[in-house]
């Protein structure tokens, strides 16, 4: 793997919140993708982060599109580039609300059609742009402005939905592991067809932790097994190094929960449910990697 390029495609003048991990991720996504790339961005934090007309913080073309429409818009763009012989990367960069909720129909359609593009969902587990309302990706127990008593139902398993479309490449990533993300974007863009990367992107104002803990929060998500880093290439699962270690000996779930205000006053029953979900997910992935399931 060559060194990460020095070129920047997202400048330092963004409108991101302090400690924003999604803009950090975007920086590495674009370094991996390079200048012959287009971002398609539905309504999400990145709609704001990129800057306000006539200024922009971006050094690649960014096509902003309506909330539900990103994957479909990218489908059209990808076909137009194919029709004109261009090899330009078409990359959707969408939040969790625009992916697991309002955008899931167009996501599913684009994957079923075999669209040649990379869809990246950066997941801060709520509607961040509008001030932290619950999304389908919000975990059980998390307090948001529309679940002030804690979300009663678990996080939607987006990855298994995407997996059901049998894409040639899909992966998870986390903002605390930028080199891993960089490599995954490079690999994804080397493959033709619909590719998917799901990034866990901790959010200081939404998750209610101090801004300087953004990297630590991402590491804890992986080390506790809440978030598992893996790749699935042409159906073959590989669990990545940091998660392999975590699966052998996970750190206590409480270490991840206790640092976040959104999980304040979590009931022991909910904590137990979370623990069960984490264990079930790890076991399912471990069995798949070993070829048992």
């Amino acid at each position, binding site marked *: 793997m060559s060194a990460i390029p020095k070129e920047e495609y997202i400048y330092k003048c963004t409108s991101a919140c302090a400690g924003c991990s999604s803009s950090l991720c975007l920086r590495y996504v674009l370094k991996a993708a390079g*200048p*012959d*790339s*287009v971002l*398609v961005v539905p309504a999400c934090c990145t*709609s*704001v982060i*990129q*800057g*306000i*007309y*006539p200024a*922009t913080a*971006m*050094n*690649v*073309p*960014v*096509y*902003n*599109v*309506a909330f*539900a*429409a990103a*994957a*479909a*818009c*990218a*489908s*059209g*763009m*990808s*076909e*137009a*580039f*194919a*029709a*004109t012989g*261009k090899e*330009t990367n078409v990359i959707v960069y969408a939040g969790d609300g625009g992916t697991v909720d309002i955008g899931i*129909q*167009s996501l*599913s*359609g684009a994957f*079923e*059609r075999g669209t040649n593009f990379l869809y990246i969902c950066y997941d801060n587990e709520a509607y961040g742009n509008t001030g932290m309302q619950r999304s389908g990706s919000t975990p059980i127990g998390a307090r948001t402005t529309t679940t002030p008593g804690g979300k009663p139902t678990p996080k939607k398993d987006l990855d298994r939905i995407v997996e059901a479309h049998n894409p040639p490449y899909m992966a998870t990533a986390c903002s605390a592991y930028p080199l891993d993300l960089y490599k995954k974007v490079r690999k994804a863009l080397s493959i033709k067809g619909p590719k998917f990367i799901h990034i866990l992107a901790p959010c200081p104002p939404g998750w209610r932790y101090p801004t300087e803990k953004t990297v630590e929060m991402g590491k804890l998500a992986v080390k506790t097994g809440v978030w598992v880093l893996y790749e699935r290439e042409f159906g073959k699962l590989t669990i990545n190094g940091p998660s392999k270690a975590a699966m052998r000996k996970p750190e206590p779930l409480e270490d991840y929960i206790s640092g976040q205000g959104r999980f304040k006053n979590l009931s022991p029953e909910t904590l137990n449910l979370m623990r069960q979900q984490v264990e079930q997910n790890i076991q399912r992935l471990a069995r798949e990697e070993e070829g048992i399931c």
Partner: protein
Amino acid sequence: MLTIATGNRAVAEAVKAAKPGVIAAYPITPQTEIVEQIADYVTTGDLDSRYIPVESEHSAMAACIGASVGGVRTFTATSSHGLLYMHEMIHWAAGGRLPIVMANVNRALGPGWNTWAEHTDAFSQRDTGWLQVYVGTVQEAYDATLMAFRIAEDERVLLPVMVNLDGFSLSHITQSLETEEIGDFLPPYHLPHAIDTENPRGYGPMTGPDNYYRFRWDIERSMRDARDVIAEVESEFADRFGRSYGPTEEYRCEDADVVVIALGTFGKEAEVAVDRLRDEGIRAGSMRLRWFRPFPDLDLSGREVVVIDRDYSFGFGGVVAHSIRAKTGIEPYSVIAGLGGQEVTYNDIADFVRGRRPGEETWFGVNDHV
């Protein structure tokens, strides 16, 4: 080449001649025949185009938006609920200044389910920044679709165009059709703001109160310029192919005391009514409104006007009648007729004229005196 075709087939033939780079397709009655026919052209190689069989109309327009800004000519077709489902993206296409062409086969809206002709679907999109033309014959469906690409892609316009044809009463009826070798009538697609990674730009970012209205004004400025562009393109089309069109199609209007205004197939039906009325000594004429956006300047001074609306704005009135009233100051006799495919014959239209009461509104089949 002279052939016979349905309205839907004529649209598909025009699309084949226009050679879009990308076509997004989703079925809906009574439009489906258009996207089926285009799928055949693409499969057999008669049309070298990328065909995206999307999962919804919202995605159909989104895909056209991505393809159009990606640098190729695009087309889609829809109807009724499909048009409404893509409403958000219809605004986006115009705001993005993308010369997408769409055929809309006019159809009523549920509930109850009704697949017959009505104009409420397209009128609900009248404020989106799309140009709208309504056609009355199979030949006109072909000609208007071809011209739509040329008008939309003109740099003075750069707005999308919706070609409207009545469900079943035009989409599924058969008439003669002259297809053309169009030569260079359509120049290669060129979008000044197409995506260019060598010149990266932001498209549709956050735009504050200091600037947003400037983009809105620019749409209106182009809409006004579009009147000249439409006239130029229709004139060139007439020179090249021998069929001339204008903002309206007038029939025996020169000396008419009373003019019937309607859109689509009712406008053609009104011509027969006019002949009947003339036989009775009533000096009637027909003015079929073709372009609805931009709305044409009409000279109706000194005439009585009967407007047939195949639509309704609840709590207000017929959309066309109101437009005529607002634009000309004339108080028309407003007839609401043909909703959801309600049968309206030329005899009925002649009756509307005979029983006209300027300034009043009548619902055909509801009010006793009709």
